[in-house]
């Protein structure tokens, strides 16, 4: 902890949380999925959810996205209970091959979000160009998803999410299917993009290193049923760097703590 200067913690401040889970339980039929989830997430916070399969990470994310209602308890956004998808909350799916429309080009896929938002046709073109430029796809506007690599397809999805101008970005293992190099490039891309906005991010991942590298807080969950086991505060400086951040003693300390914790949970 010596050289890391702790950032003021958004959730610790007096401001009410942007997103809050209160006594959330969920069951699929007879099977309990989530138990007693209480979690508050502040404005502009980057929270990573980690835990083994079956701990309900994705279920939590779908609740914030309004795709799923909890069996009991409530999820609130900006003080109101979430009852369905909201314009301010955008959702990035893990499987890019199933989240993009294969019959639309990169530009067409981004356009879908603008069409849904009712943006006049004339204003769409420049907006699409700007968004695709932002995610580094300026030269691929007219390519179909099948003509793009996995990383590029995921960039299209990022652009489509940004087109919504969300204040909350929900990401469900977005880089899980990508190779290591692409993955690191996209991690930095996401950090760069959200650094300029005040976007709040909830990021689900299997990868503990990724969680520490990206997050302000890492929430570790136990499986069967999913419960919050422990919350780790990440005090590493921003902007983060793939080399120096990952070599930082605090990074290594957190990494060790999380790995020990997960190993403990498995025994």
């Amino acid at each position, binding site marked *: 902890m010596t050289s890391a200067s702790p950032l003021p913690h958004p959730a610790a401040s007096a401001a009410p949380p942007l997103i809050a889970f209160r006594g959330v339980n969920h069951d699929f039929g007879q099977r309990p999925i989530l138990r007693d989830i209480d979690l508050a997430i502040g404005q502009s916070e980057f929270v990573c959810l980690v835990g083994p399969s079956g701990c309900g990470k994705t279920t939590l994310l779908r609740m914030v996205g309004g795709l799923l209602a909890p069996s009991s308890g409530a999820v609130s956004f900006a003080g109101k209970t979430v009852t369905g*998808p909201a314009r301010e909350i955008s959702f990035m799916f893990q499987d890019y091959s199933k989240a993009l*429309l294969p*019959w639309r080009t990169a530009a067409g896929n981004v356009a879908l979000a603008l*069409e849904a938002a009712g943006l006049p046709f004339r204003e769409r073109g420049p907006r699409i160009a700007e968004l695709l430029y932002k995610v580094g796809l300026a030269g691929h506007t007219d390519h179909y998803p099948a003509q793009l690599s996995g990383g590029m397809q995921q960039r299209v999805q990022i652009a489509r999410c940004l087109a919504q101008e969300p204040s909350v970005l929900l990401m469900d293992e977005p880089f899980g299917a990508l190779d290591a190099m692409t993955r690191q490039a996209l991690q930095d891309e996401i950090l760069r993009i959200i650094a300029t906005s005040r976007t709040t991010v909830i990021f689900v991942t299997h990868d503990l290193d990724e969680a520490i590298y990206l997050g302000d807080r890492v929430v570790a969950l136990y499986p069967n049923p999913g419960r919050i086991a422990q919350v780790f505060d990440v005090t590493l400086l921003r902007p983060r760097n793939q080399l120096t951040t990952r070599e930082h003693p605090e990074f290594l300390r957190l990494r060790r703590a999380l790995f020990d914790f997960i190993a403990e949970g498995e025994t």
Partner: protein
Amino acid sequence: MKLAKAVVVPAALLLAWEFVMRSRGIESDSLAPPSQIAVAFVDAMLDGTIPRRTAETLRAALGGLAIGGGSAIIASVVLGLVPPAARLMQFSIEVLRPIPAVALIPVALLVLGFGYRMEIALVAFACFWPVLIYGHSAITNIEPQLIDVSRVLRLTPISRVTKIVLPAALPRYFVAFRLATAVSLIIAVTVEIASNPQGIGHELMAAAQSLHPDLMFALLLWIGIVGWGLNSLLLFAQRRLFGAAGAAVSASP
């Protein structure tokens, strides 16, 4: 080269047929040598019989296809998106579907009389089922994540159908229409042979009954060509329309 190989067997058979008929001096009311069939074909083409009869058959077949297939698209979207409707209709569909369209010829004749109306109605009945069944499964098999995408983006129900559901199901609908096109031709010709005094089927029946085997075989050959031509046309259109999307489906892991 490929074409030459494909033609070898039929050409040899035709030659043998011609040779046997001529060498034995067969005079038949039910069989004609290929040379006479070819002459009859050219004559029927030139005097306008084949073009006129073909137009009649195609009008009935494609009209029925449009009505039956079109209403099946609407029905399948409703059944696909409203599960209670599918459960409600399941029994009726399973009872009605196995009825052979040709078994309805007497009913259609009684209600609608001779002509296009009864033929189109029967073709429409026959074409309705394959498009309904294929379309319904196409809609229910749409990638659930695409539906999630449409929910997260808050598309209106109409946009959801026009921008996500129908484009995603379109390739399967096209396959259903190809099947239904073949069905439409079969039913149209069958109805013409059985009762309706118009179209290629009727001409074929008339040729057989007036003991003109050459014309009969010429018409048979022509029906084959028309069916093959329609299917090739649709295959070509399918490749042109869904080439990119088809590649996308096969390229995704």
